[in-house]
């Protein structure tokens, strides 16, 4: 599907701006095509993730997982906790999306090339290995993910992002919304990691699983 064929964004924005404004936004002299395809600004070229923006890797992520997260952000199930600083940045991006817009984005993201992530952590991977046993039940021995259990792949994700999310689950910044049933499962799991060092160790082990 060519980028220029998509009118999804214009339809979405029509609900937020007046008819007159919409007409102006389509004025040819402005020469910028608007749609929902903003992802790379934060998530990096081909969705490789961008530490500078604290925006995780999207390339290579499962479509079903990305869909659920976009829907959760849109519905306020994720990204509304006052302390979830990165989630709160993501939420306004998801709020205007329609179902069709989400479908388009997922198709687009699905076409991105996956490249190995940069390793930024220097935790104790062997200590992390035993901690990972609890994670493996859902996320798989190779951290490859398990759609049937709703558990995404962890291998290949940016390590700094996994650390932030584990901390957020542990603190209840993520997963404490009443409708976040998968996130709720993560809260006690992350809670079992004693401290920052334990979190970094388990993520350092995930780093060894490659992709």
């Amino acid at each position, binding site marked *: 599907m*060519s*980028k*220029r064929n998509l009118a999804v964004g214009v339809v979405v*924005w029509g609900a*937020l*701006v*007046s008819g*007159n*404004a*919409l007409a*102006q*936004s389509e*004025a040819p002299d*402005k*020469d*910028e095509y*608007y749609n929902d395809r*903003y992802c*790379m*600004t*934060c*998530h*990096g*070229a*081909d969705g*490789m*993730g*961008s*530490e*500078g*923006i604290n*925006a995780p890797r999207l390339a290579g992520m499962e479509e079903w997982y990305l869909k659920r997260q976009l829907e959760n952000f849109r519905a306020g199930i994720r990204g509304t906790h006052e302390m979830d600083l990165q989630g*709160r*940045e993501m*939420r*306004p*991006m*998801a*709020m*205007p999306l329609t179902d069709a817009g989400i479908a388009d984005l997922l198709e687009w993201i699905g076409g991105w090339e996956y*490249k190995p992530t940069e390793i930024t952590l220097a935790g104790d991977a062997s200590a992390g290995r035993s901690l990972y046993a609890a994670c493996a039940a859902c996320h798989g021995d190779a951290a490859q993910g398990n759609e049937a259990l709703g558990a995404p792949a962890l291998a290949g994700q940016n390590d700094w992002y996994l650390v932030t999310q584990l901390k957020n689950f542990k603190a209840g910044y993520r997963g404490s919304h009443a409708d976040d049933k998968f996130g709720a499962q993560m809260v006690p799991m992350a809670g079992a990691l004693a401290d920052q060092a334990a979190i970094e160790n388990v993520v350092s082990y995930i780093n060894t699983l490659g992709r």
Partner: protein
Amino acid sequence: MSQSVSRREFMNLLGATFGTGALIRLGSALSMMPAVAALSRPVLAAPAPGAGKVVVLGAGISGLTVAWELTKAGYDVTVLESSNRAGGRVMTVRSGDVVDEIGNRQVCEWDNEPHMYFNAGAARIPSTHRNLLSYCKELKVDLEVFINESKTAWVQDDAMLDGKPIRNAELSTNVRGFLGELFAKSFTSAQLDEPFTESESEAIMGLISQFGDLDEDMLYKGSSRAGYVSGGFIDHGVQKDMIAFKHFMKSRMLSLTFTANEGETGPMLMQPVGGMDRVPAGFTRALGDRVKYETPVMSVKVKESNVEVVYLRDGAPQTIVADYCFNCIPAHFMSGIEHNFPAEYVHAMKYIRRGEAMKAAFQAKERFWEKEEIYGGISWVNSPIRQLWYPSHGIHKDKGVILAAYDFGGGMNFTRMTQEQRIEMLLAQGEKVHPNYRQLVEKPITIAWHRMNHMLGCAARWGRSGGGMTMEEEALFATLQQPALGRHYLIGDQMSYHGAWQESAILSAHWALADMDQRVRSAAA
């Protein structure tokens, strides 16, 4: 004023009132006052045959400067810009423009008139910014005077005068009167430990008296400088009563009545006629089709003898190979762009934080400030909007654009809000200054730089300690200033000690150009 003031207290007060440290903390607008930059345009050697290809990433002011200077020197320059416009944070909003905030797209519906615009980023050109001014002259960007201070504008603080706004002139006159009395008392009693002759003492007392407009007993009892209640032209003027200092005491905004118009925000300030984006427009006019829009960069690979850049055009990857690369993409984006920079370079790059400044504007249905004797200048408000700016241009037209907020630090106040919440905050705080503000303004535009597409941040933040850069930070800066593998230069106001000014971006560009030129010359020698 019967209580005596000790010498120590007096000196402390002097320090608190006039000390540069206090001034510096006022905000980024005043954060540093560097020396006037010398005209720093390097004289560039012509490139060697077949070795004059340069790619510039980003059409911000620094990128445009590099592109223009190299073009004049005979280089083959391509500028890749990810958005549909040049200028970066030099951005002017007018009728029909789209404000491309991610998650909060806005369309400007103001009247389509030349004076109905808002400079959402850079807005002032100090007379000391010689390099920028020289480009304005060269590129035929017409300038006009920008009024930064109006003594008839307001100062409002909930902590003083029960939140009632006071004219800048009235506040500063009364504060100066109080300080003048203090000076006089202190001088007479202490003589500041200096042996003055009688005539020197008289001169000093005269100066103090003038400073505070004191009476013959060296007491402040009000001053016509604060303005008249009525009359004064063809009948006797009725002077305003003095306001005792205790009524202002709790406000932390007093020093701004002395400092807001000093240093770089002191006169003379200028602005381009018709909007600050006339500056990048001057460059792009000169550069023509060397600037390619909507060409986001995907990858930057620096090699032994060239730099390879991959970018998207109409969604398809394109490759350009150049001898040198100048990059003004905000550093925080580079972690999301494939590259092969050295580890210490990446480490330094990752250290920079994203700026958070925010500005907002309304179309005013009438120029209500002119009815309050305000023509240009700034009202200061001790709440998150911080400032209201009245346009220096379009005087006496039917309408105008009023700057409704300039949150130059900690702008996340507004950034985290929905557009509706932002607008309500703008109105609620603006009406503390102008009681019928809510009825007089319409069609809000908010620019939260932290969320703007292609930008995601205002001026880069190097210092994390609250003051200037630490030695460690200076070392990181020095690492990043050097070209990666001798061919890739990171430029822009992010590569200066003095962010958020166009002059800084230009000087950063000149530094990089001079460095490249030296390499080219030594290779040729």
